[in-house]
């Protein structure tokens, strides 16, 4: 592979994570709930993993609940909080640019009688504080807003939600989908003022199939699954130890946020500098976006064509969310972009392992594509 630049879809697992996953499979295969020695060892591993993830998030260990990944954490947070608080109100406030696991959860709740407000966004993909303040009322039991958008990288004003909720006196639980921001921005729940926070392992160089939900102490959630008493009965089922261990190792391996941010900002700037000379390329991400994601449109070349062209040269980027495979971006639509931008959109996403050579490879190929591909009229 010449350049893997689709890190918002998934990241390559880091060496630490691979080793920890294998170690858990070979040495700690006991059931953490078993009373014998094998069980005890697995339980010790589980609790050390919980501490690792907690420290990466910036919370207490007993506030971390392991799930199967970002989608489940988002479902649990939204459906769980809505059902637990259904007697206190029926309004849910969220945005039009959330990940599909948030949007589909709120749609399902809508069908069950909840009133959902989808806040619109501006050209930069941001919801406005004024709109948030208008939408959150005393009937609001849940606000769900992402930390950083998965398609364009826009950072949402999540920290103002707590102030609004307190001022209004809404009984709202506040959820933040931090899948794209975890490890990349500071997401300490206490700082952001959120009650629930979703993180995922495979976006930070851990294995797929595992994630976590931060649940602030005292916040009420109904479980989605019923079974044993694992994860304090909030998420029953024998713990997926190998991937949990891999997740924890990946979390431990995260450098300080500021260090990665400075490096990736350099990577991003190199790409932006290279794109500056291409007058047929539009930058769709805002200037102050999470630097890990750059969304652009190359006028006249459909995303799929460009993806195929780049893929032939060993370069992996995407046309939008990997969860929307081939469909047109509703995020770009919500930002008010036109058909010509949306049909030609590309998402380039980095990790702390992305090299300058990869950026140069991409720029070179983009130039070649722009000169050789026949454009739609």
């Amino acid at each position, binding site marked *: 592979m010449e350049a893997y630049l689709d890190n918002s879809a998934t990241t390559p697992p880091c060496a630490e994570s691979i080793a920890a996953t294998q170690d858990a499979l070979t040495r700690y295969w006991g059931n953490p709930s078993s009373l014998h020695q094998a069980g005890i060892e697995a339980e010790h591993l589980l609790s050390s993993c919980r501490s690792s993830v907690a420290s990466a998030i910036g919370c207490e260990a007993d506030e971390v609940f392991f799930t199967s990944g970002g989608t489940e954490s988002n479902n649990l947070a939204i459906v769980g909080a809505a059902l637990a608080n259904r007697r206190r109100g029926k309004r849910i406030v969220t945005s039009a640019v959330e990940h599909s696991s948030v949007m589909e959860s709120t749609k399902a709740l809508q069908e069950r009688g909840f009133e959902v407000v989808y806040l619109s966004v501006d050209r930069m993909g941001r919801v406005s504080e004024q709109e948030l303040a208008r939408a959150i009322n005393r009937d609001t039991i849940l606000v769900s807003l992402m930390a950083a958008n998965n398609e364009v990288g826009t950072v949402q004003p999540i920290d103002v939600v707590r102030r609004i909720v307190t001022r209004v006196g809404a009984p709202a639980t506040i959820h933040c989908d931090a899948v794209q921001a975890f490890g990349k921005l500071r997401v300490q729940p206490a700082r952001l003022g959120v009650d629930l926070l979703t993180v995922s392992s495979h976006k930070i160089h851990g294995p797929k199939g595992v994630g976590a939900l931060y649940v602030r102490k005292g916040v009420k959630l109904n479980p989605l699954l019923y079974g044993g008493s694992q994860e304090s009965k909030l998420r029953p089922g024998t713990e997926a130890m190998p991937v949990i261990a891999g997740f924890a190792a990946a979390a431990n391996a995260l450098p300080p946020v500021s260090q990665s941010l400075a490096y990736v900002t350099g990577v991003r700037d190199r790409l932006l500098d290279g794109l500056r000379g291409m007058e047929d390329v539009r930058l769709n991400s805002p200037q102050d976006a999470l630097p890990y994601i750059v969304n652009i449109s190359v006028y006249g070349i*459909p995303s799929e064509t460009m993806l195929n062209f780049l*893929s032939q040269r060993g370069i992996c980027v995407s046309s939008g969310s990997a969860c929307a495979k081939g469909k047109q971006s509703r995020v770009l639509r919500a930002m008010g972009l036109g058909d010509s931008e949306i049909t030609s959109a590309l998402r380039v996403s980095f990790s702390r392992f992305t090299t300058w050579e990869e950026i140069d490879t991409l720029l070179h190929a983009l130039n070649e594509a722009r000169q050789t591909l*026949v454009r739609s*009229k």
Partner: protein
Amino acid sequence: MLKIGELTLKGLNRRTFEDQLLKDLKQKLKPLGNWQFVLSQSTLQVIPPDGEIDMNEAYARALRVFGLSGVSRALRCEKSMDVILEKAPIYLENDLACARTFKVEAKRSDKSFSLNSPQICESVGEKLLDAFAHLQVDVHHPDVTVMVEIREQFAFLHAGQARGAGGLPAGSAGDAAILISGGIDSPVAAWMMARRGLRLTAIHFASPPYTSQRAEDKVHKLLAKVARYAGRIELYVVPFTQTQEAIQAHCPEDLFTLIMRRVMMRLAQAIAKEHRCKALITGESLGQVASQTLQALVVTEDVCQIPVFRPLIGMDKNDAIEIARSIGTFDISIEPYQDCCTVFTPKHPRTKPKLAQLQIAESALDLDKLMADALAGTRKHVIES
């Protein structure tokens, strides 16, 4: 027990068709064991080998054999009323336990059997009513029709017959080439013509990077579904990028699709000829899109010297979808990858083209060179059944 369909209407060449059908059936069942085949009049007995046999899979495969009008799973037993009465409640339990009403029909090809048909029905019916207290007889609209057939050597017992795949035996009509894109219609057209006995060769146009490997993979998956009925299919993938780029660069935008269709037909014809295919097959349906208006079909057909079969020409989209679902291609067809027919689609395509205009527009292209390159780059794949 398989019922032979339409080919019983054949005259002196009926044997040829029967042989084709048997050949196809044997090929489909062979991986499951060593079966025995007994053909008498219009019924084909397929007797399983001893031992562990996946009868469910065998039944499913028999339902995909062209030329059969009906398929039943039957019990073969000794020709004695005692044995029949003993076995009937046991063998039919699964069918009758979840039915409310039933009737019994009997057929005797051996007229020397001790009881006549009404007598057989009566005693089997009585036995089953005893065995399944919840059952009632309904001779007009029964949930289950129990069949007792007394043949030369054995008696057969079954709970009715499922509709076979119909048509004529695979390959009995000769060879034709299907132009397959990846949409809903072309696999349906392929299946419909295979059902009339055509052996299929498939032709797909790929335009990387405008189309992706996934679009081609999709065609492989679609053909694999069709091959479950039609048998092995050879697929020729024609590189089409240069041609599409040339049309886009040198021809009027509103004629893009029609010129492309004409070049496709010319290329398909060349490949068809090389592989002894006597006709082309397309999934076109009258008026469905701009390139399928009557005038568009006329100008497309103009470049063809061999017949073009368009089995969907008079069909409603929903009918095609229904077939696509039943043969298992629908869910694959709706995967959202760009195919060569959607690359460079004009905003306002011409719906009433004139042949002369197209000929003039095409003269801007070096067709001989484009076609020679495309044919030289064509790759062959084999889709096994």
